[in-house]
């Protein structure tokens, strides 16, 4: 009775993963690597996957053959009470050893290819990554640039990340570029990867280690651009365009609200006034916010509506977030003022406020 079931289930069990293998590309998929380290990781997986097919066929083949051949029949006699066969057992011991060696050799080689500590040269881009509940700080010590939740890197360069945590353990995971390394308090971790010379694009990533609260919303973007675009981006941050007067009244109102509502008590905004540093280091830096693609640690695209929604009620968008709600629930000016702050923030670093959005819509999600 069960035999019929099992015989029918067998082809399905094998076909399903094979069919699934065809459609595993995705914006955050390990199966679509876009840089050398991620390709190495993916290649190792594919090797063991191919190796596992004969193992599965062998084990399950023998299992189902045995179940069919030796099922009990009415006229069965007492089977031979054999306790084993030394020759068979030696073979059965050697087979798993061979399989393990076939996996272990390429695995060990790739450990030293991908995890060896490298010393930064002047040609590399060094970024200090600090994880906070629940956002990412990216410092570029070579350029004196600080930003949040959106890492810009030039294509074709080696990137060396130094990872640390401002509170609990986090994990930096960029699936299509580099895999992951944990961010642990009081411990300096490193992760490096090469980007392809033609590998421009926007890549997603997120925190992979439980950090309570809004852990699920702790995402980030990595923007890989051509060297000259990257240089422009760095220059924008080194000398942020300070705008103290705006022709658009909404933006002007927003600039006032950023001070009166207390935004700059936590957040630094390099564009607010010349040479003054605001905020505190454990909150995201909003300098040149208009160049960002996302808001709320990469959970929403940075459209005026989304930014206003986020400012209006952060808990609604990202439950558990540390950002306070700045208005009473019944404040009649709430929607308008949130829109004004959003308009101001999105104007930072850009002459034309639509520039960032255009980039966002052409980039890979």
């Amino acid at each position, binding site marked *: 009775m069960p035999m019929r079931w099992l015989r029918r289930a067998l082809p399905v069990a094998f076909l399903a993963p094979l069919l699934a293998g065809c459609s595993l590309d995705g914006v955050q998929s390990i199966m679509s690597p876009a840089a050398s380290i991620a390709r190495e990781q993916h290649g190792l997986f594919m090797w063991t996957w191919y190796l596992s097919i004969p193992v599965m066929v062998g084990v399950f083949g023998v299992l189902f053959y045995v179940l069919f051949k030796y099922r009990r029949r009415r006229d069965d006699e007492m089977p031979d009470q054999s306790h084993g066969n030394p020759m068979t057992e030696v073979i059965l011991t050697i087979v798993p050893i061979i399989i393990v060696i076939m996996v272990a050799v390429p695995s060990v080689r790739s450990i030293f290819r991908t995890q060896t500590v490298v010393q930064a040269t002047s040609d590399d881009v060094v970024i200090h990554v600090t994880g906070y509940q629940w956002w990412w700080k990216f410092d570029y010590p070579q350029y004196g640039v600080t930003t949040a939740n959106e890492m810009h890197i030039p294509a074709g360069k080696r990137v060396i990340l130094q990872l640390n945590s401002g509170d*609990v353990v986090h994990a930096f995971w960029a699936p299509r570029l580099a895999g992951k390394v944990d961010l642990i308090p009081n411990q300096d971790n490193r992760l490096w990867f090469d980007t392809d010379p033609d590998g421009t694009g926007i890549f997603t990533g997120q925190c992979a280690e439980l950090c*309570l609260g809004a852990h699920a919303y702790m995402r980030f973007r990595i923007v890989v651009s051509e060297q000259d675009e990257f240089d422009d981006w760095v220059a924008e941050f080194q000398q942020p365009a300070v705008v103290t007067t705006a022709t658009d009244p909404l933006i002007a109102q927003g600039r006032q609200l950023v001070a009166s509502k207390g935004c700059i008590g936590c957040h630094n905004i390099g564009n607010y006034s010349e040479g003054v540093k605001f905020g505190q280091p454990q909150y995201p830096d909003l300098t040149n916010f208009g160049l960002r693609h996302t808001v709320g640690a990469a959970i929403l695209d940075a459209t005026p509506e989304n930014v206003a929604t986020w400012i209006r009620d952060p808990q609604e968008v990202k439950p558990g977030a540390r950002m306070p709600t700045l208005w009473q629930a019944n404040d009649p000016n709430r929607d308008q003022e949130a829109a004004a702050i959003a308009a101001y923030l999105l104007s930072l670093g850009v002459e034309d406020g639509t520039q960032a959005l255009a980039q966002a819509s052409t980039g890979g999600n």
Partner: protein
Amino acid sequence: MATAPTVTSPTRGKIFNRPTWTTGVGSWLTTIDHKRLGLLYICTAFMFMIFAAVEAGLIRLQLLSPTMNIVNPDHFNQLFTMHGVTMVFLAIMPLGIGLANYFVPLQIGARDLAFPRLNAFGYWIYALGGLMIYTSWFLGGAPDVGWFAYAPLTSLSHNPGLGVDFYMFGLFISGIGTTGTAMNLIVTIINMRAPGMTMMRVPVFTWMILIMSFMIIYAFPPLTIAFIEVILDRTFGTLFFVQEAGALPILWQHLFWIFGHPEVYIIILPAFGVISEIIPTFSRKSLFGYPVMILSGILIGFMGAAVWTHHMFTTGLGPVVNTAFSLTSFVIGIPTGIKIFNWLGTMWGGSIRFTTPIIYAIAFLITFTLGGITGIMLAMPTFDAQVHDTYFVVAHFHYVMGGGALLSYLGALYYWFPKMTGRMMSERLGKIAAFITVIGFHGIFFPQHIAGLLGMPRRIQTYPAGIGLELWNALSTVGSWLMGIGLVLIAINVIHGLTRGKRVGDDPWDARTLEWETSSPPPYYDFKVQPVVNSLDPLWARKHPEAMHVTPPAPDAGAKYDAGGIHIPGQSWYPFLASAAIMFGCYALMYDNFILAIVCGLFFIFTIFGWAFEGVGGHHVHFDGAKENA
């Protein structure tokens, strides 16, 4: 031989009389009978498993589609923490210990464990510790830090609520019970085997329990140390894991996983034992390669201590450490592979009868092989750097823990149910439920491999639409409904079996080991005559001496060992009272009520003295009518 036993009682104890109830609540609270304690373990473990299944159901419901809002992030964290804690510490591991409690003495022809009151203490401290953790749902929220509770998530500054205290105290005290029971099992298996049962004639289930017990002894102390450090941090203000004072939180990860990886084998070895009982019975063949099976179990026990940092490949330990622990992890795959081949070898040439237990055993072989393959993949640090803490890992360890341990324990439930109750569960309903459960299981966890590869991290209460996770999560949730139906059918079958199940004889499965020689359910003295053994599979040798090429000992060969009567130890209140004192002391510490804590401590000391000085107790059972005082 007289049929009605006569009973002689020894002198009374000193502090209190030892209770002598045979029925009622008091008899269960004071019992020291390994079979009753085994049943208590098994029932308590299944109760916790139901809680954990409900938690899992809610988790899957929340993840049915992107941006669902059935539970908020805080409750979601509590749900998956409690699911993991419950399954690992309160359900699956105690299920193995409960089966060991019940069947190890029966399999080796003993009348009880070596230290019956310690055994009762082990049960009560586990049950009360588990219940204590569950009271947290009503006392300000369950722990929400994951079952691994990584520092510094557990420090007071990040987690001021009581949930973490419940986790630390509850698991700390149930760990005491587990360690005590493990020592008890070791002494029992080493010292109390039937005459003639050499170590190489011990049934494989008992062998695996022996290895498991040694693993508990070496794995639990690091965990207990870690718990005590956090308890000291939170209750008395020490600085073990306070990062502002310069603590290195990685210490917790090492201590936790030095326990955590052996724990995986603590859970799976009894399951290997169960499979090694079921497959020979229903194939009507001896286990293929018995010595190899034992040796590979021992090798797993040794290597289990040397693989813990494969849980920490992404913590930045460096390529050399990662290589070393990667290789040890590969090595542990070898004995596991050998075991799978030997189970196939057992069935080869046999005469396989498809009962519910062997259907679970077959499902175990398939699921565990798949889990082993993903395990080898995860042992590669380079690939682990991608899938660590993703749903790929979730799928992997559910394949080995759920599909490996849980499915084989369900098989054990069907296999040993007639021995424990004297009744059969319905085979027909059992097979239907088994298929639904197994298909549901794969329905839940197979898609999770793919979700992980597509970039879904663990422990997230929501995921964005549009990155390809919708289909696989929906499939997984539908699978959980199917598995839920299967588990309900199993529960119905248990109730049906208890009330209406067909009454069966001592040996309904035509089995091979000693537990099937005594009546079903076994009498409180287990064996009327001390069994004597001169081969593997002693019951089978008695039934088929020609096939085994042995002459079994005469049925009353062991009578001379019972010349003084069968000593049945007396019941006792003290194990229960000592456990209760510890539990209330923990509550007192948690709420910073140090006076109550001291009172509980004093009461605990009193119970230990009472335990020591309550006297011998118990009685002797005679079947020959002789009158004699102990």
